[in-house]
């Protein structure tokens, strides 16, 4: 009796642990397939890179600009204008646009745009039993489908981060202009406070976000079951899991980066 009660209480947790474990297995198998020759995925990789870039650039542009204009731009400019220190906004944008919001918004947009498309694509192939057919033909779906998506998402998320930082900083410039400020002070504090560590931390973090999103979305797509409702449900779960995983990883990475690089914490 107690056996069944315990089993029932831990049943949801059990399936969650199983899924995390399966995703880890998929990650290692993907990395192994990516480094071990032959490399048959060149064309698919280029196709996926273009696909993600074409889908993501416009939502990312609007999202970063809107978020950076509202949250750090106008809120911080409002507070700084009370002190008459609006030139300090540049230093603040190092924290927000480069270290925090740039990578995070890139991850949210890539997960919402490219991750969902990957899950929908792979899920549809799974439902139509194309993945099984590939395996029968002797084509490894991990090597030919997951690896190019994994590499493409890692590369493109890292590169889109630069794009997001540029548009985040232009939102900061817009906030300065809304307060009728000259831009010299903004750029002076921005370049005084920005460091190489900030930039590589941001890009590295974003690349790893891409890896997380690719693995979660590929896994959910490849394990979709249950017909029409199944693909939609897989997309739903994939995007929730990737968002929570990305935000949690961001917290851990930021805490480690800031704690191990004290030079980021000096004000100039």
């Amino acid at each position, binding site marked *: 009796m107690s056996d069944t009660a315990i089993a029932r209480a831990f049943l949801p947790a059990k399936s969650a642990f199983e899924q995390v474990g399966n995703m880890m297995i998929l990650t290692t198998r993907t990395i192994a397939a990516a480094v071990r020759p032959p490399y048959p995925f060149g064309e698919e990789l280029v196709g996926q890179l273009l696909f993600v870039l074409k889908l993501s*650039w416009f*939502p990312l542009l609007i999202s970063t600009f*809107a978020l950076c204009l509202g949250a750090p731009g106008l809120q911080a400019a409002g*507070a700084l204008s009370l002190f008459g220190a609006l030139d300090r906004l540049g230093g603040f944008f190092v924290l927000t646009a480069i270290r925090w919001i740039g990578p995070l918004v890139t991850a949210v947009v890539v997960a919402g745009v490219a991750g969902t498309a990957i899950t929908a694509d792979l899920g549809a192939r799974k439902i139509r039993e194309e993945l099984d057919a590939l395996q029968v033909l002797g084509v490894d779906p991990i090597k030919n489908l997951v690896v190019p998506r994994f590499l493409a998402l890692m590369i493109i998320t890292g590169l889109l981060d630069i794009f997001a930082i540029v548009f985040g900083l232009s939102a900061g410039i817009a906030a300065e202009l809304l307060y009728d400020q000259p831009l010299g002070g903004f750029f002076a504090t921005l370049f005084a406070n920005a460091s190489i560590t900030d930039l590589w931390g941001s890009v590295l973090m974003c690349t790893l976000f891409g890896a997380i999103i690719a693995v979660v979305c590929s896994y959910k797509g490849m394990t979709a079951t249950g017909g*029409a409702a199944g693909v939609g449900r897989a997309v739903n779960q994939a*995007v929730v899991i990737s968002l929570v995983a990305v935000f949690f990883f961001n*917290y851990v990475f930021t805490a480690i980066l800031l704690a191990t690089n004290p030079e980021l914490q000096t004000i100039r």
Partner: protein
Amino acid sequence: MRGATSIGWLDMPRGWLDAVGELARFGSRVAGLVYSGRVLKFFGESLRQAGILILGSALVIWAFVFILGLQCGIQGAYFFRAQGVPAYAGLFAAWCDLREALPYAFGYILSAKVGTGIVAELGAMRISDEIDALEVMGIEPVTFLAATRLLAAWMVLPFLYLAGIGIMYAASYLAVVEQIADVSSGGYLLIFWTFQNPPDLIFSLIKGMVMATAIVIVGCYYGYTASGGPVGVGTATAQSMVVNIVLVHIIGMLGTVVFWGANPRAPIGG
């Protein structure tokens, strides 16, 4: 499935221009059905949807909000340590939590969990012809499927949001006072509570609820108009997520401009 080469660079903004009018018409129709009270015919269904929202989404929303609260805490703590006033991490935490991060976190996780969930559910109903069956049985499908979900969201989400504020505050407190530990509990809380007041809470709630309304309507629209078999449901789910993310950011920015753009509402100076 659309190939990588078949989509152009401008397809996405062009698709939105097509969809925006249809979305606005569908949204006003659903909101009208709720506002005029015709949805009350199916109040039981609304309660069932509210229950699904609470049981299915509350824990995910709160976990997400908790993580973002931790982030607000550490970012603020390190920034103000650099400035030499670690106690003012409370200022960053108060504004970040209440004014910006919570509405955005709420919008992200709602579009991911609730929005795409609605598309997957309604889309599956659409392509297995269940929605046509409802119409044949004399039940108005928009009222029964879309308006009940919007009413359920309006009934449940304000409370989830308010509880989320508490959870986020607790997370920021943990990050600043327990994890970074530059400032005492009293010093942090003094600044933290000084830099917020009840109207800020109302503004933040309005921002979150406008986002929630938009997300539910977008979800219902894409699910209701899904076509093209199982693949079509997956594609519609993916498309709704893109539209939702952009809408969340635009609503967030407009909310900031309207509520705090002209007056930063800070107890500084005269």
